[in-house]
């Protein structure tokens, strides 16, 4: 840094005194700078590098520089990690002990959800009642995050002309009979399991997100083994847009209705049904289906876009 500043000063002085070839002037002066301490150190470092170069001629000056940079990088990254861990641990020491009864997290909200959840939402699974009834707005936001992500990927990677390069078809199982038979048995079962998880979301663990992810994974498996031609018959960009748009619109409209009735104290016309029955808990099951559709389409859409830049 010091050397650089000196250089700038010299350059400025040379320019100020009206010399024409400033660079020559500076070179000459840096030769003189060997006499100073900085110049001497620089000279020694240069000599050391040259000696190393003579010992190992296959390595250039550049690689030596890279190696010293790597060493500094490792040391600095370890230092940053240790400091960060120390700061975070210090911050954690101010927090209340984990699992204590009078923690701020154990307030009346959780009690309300657990005590009145079955009565208010009609869902046997308290989690489903929470995320799709009390906190339905959060789930709507999550669905929109996924939708927006796919839209961005479509804008970035999608091809307008719809041209698909054959090379991008990253599947090898074209002629593998074992794989084909296996997938033809496995994928329908997996899809059925995903549908079960979505439709049973208000009765058992799981719900729209998990079920949608399972269905998306099943579709990916099918696509990887049997090629994109076989999935194009039932799933293309148009299907994706229609299904996602319909699911999100249904979610918005139905939740607007239930928020409106709930906020104004109007009795909702949607029956809650008997808790534990298949057709119960009001809007939770249709909303689960909507979320599942969005998630499965999103997962498959990501896969398809990354594999060949087209849904």
């Amino acid at each position, binding site marked *: 840094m010091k050397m650089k500043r000196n250089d700038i000063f010299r350059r400025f002085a040379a320019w100020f005194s009206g010399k024409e070839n400033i660079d020559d002037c500076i070179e000459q002066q840096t030769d003189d700078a060997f006499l100073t301490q900085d110049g001497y150190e620089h000279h020694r470092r240069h000599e050391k590098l040259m000696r190393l170069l003579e010992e190992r001629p296959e390595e250039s000056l550049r690689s030596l520089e890279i190696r010293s940079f790597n060493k500094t990088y490792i040391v600095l990254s370890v230092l940053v990690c240790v400091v960060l861990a120390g700061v975070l641990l210090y911050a954690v020491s101010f927090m209340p002990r984990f699992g204590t009864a009078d923690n701020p997290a154990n307030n009346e909200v959780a009690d309300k959800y657990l005590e009145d959840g079955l009565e208010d939402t009609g869902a046997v699974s308290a989690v489903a009642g929470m995320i799709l009834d009390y906190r339905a707005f959060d789930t709507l936001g999550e669905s929109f995050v996924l939708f927006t992500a796919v839209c961005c990927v479509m804008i970035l990677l999608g091809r307008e002309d719809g041209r698909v390069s054959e090379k991008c078809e990253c599947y090898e199982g074209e002629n593998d009979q074992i794989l084909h038979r296996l997938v033809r048995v496995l994928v329908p079962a997996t899809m059925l399991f995903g549908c079960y998880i979505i439709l049973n979301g208000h009765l058992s*663990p799981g719900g729209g997100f998990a079920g949608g992810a399972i269905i998306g994974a099943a579709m990916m498996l099918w696509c990887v083994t049997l090629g994109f031609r076989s999935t194009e018959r039932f799933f293309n960009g148009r299907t994706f847009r229609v299904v996602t748009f319909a699911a999100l619109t249904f979610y918005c409209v139905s939740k607007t209705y239930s928020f409106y009735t709930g906020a104004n104290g109007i009795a909702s016309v949607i029956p809650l049904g008997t808790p534990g029955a298949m057709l119960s808990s009001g809007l939770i099951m249709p909303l689960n289906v909507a979320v599942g559709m969005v998630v499965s389409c999103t997962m498959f859409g990501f896969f398809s876009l990354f594999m060949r830049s087209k849904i």
Partner: protein
Amino acid sequence: MDEAIRIFLLVMLIACAVSVSFTKKLLSAVVIFTSYSLIMAIVWVLLESPDLAVTEAAVGAGITGVLFFLTLKKINMIDSDTKENDEDEKK
């Protein structure tokens, strides 16, 4: 017995998490990462949150694993190790 299983699972969890970053082969790293998710799913069940367990198994072990494999396939990293070995043998 229950406690022993818990401790074993947690130790395996840490072992998986550490070995992911120390694995040279990307394919093995993805497989270890997937097994990490599966162990985590069992831990969620033991912690009495089956909803999270289902989601972890579906997303962590299913979707993430498939996407990682496909990415490796796309950037031709699955076959590169075996190819290098073949070239070494030829030499």
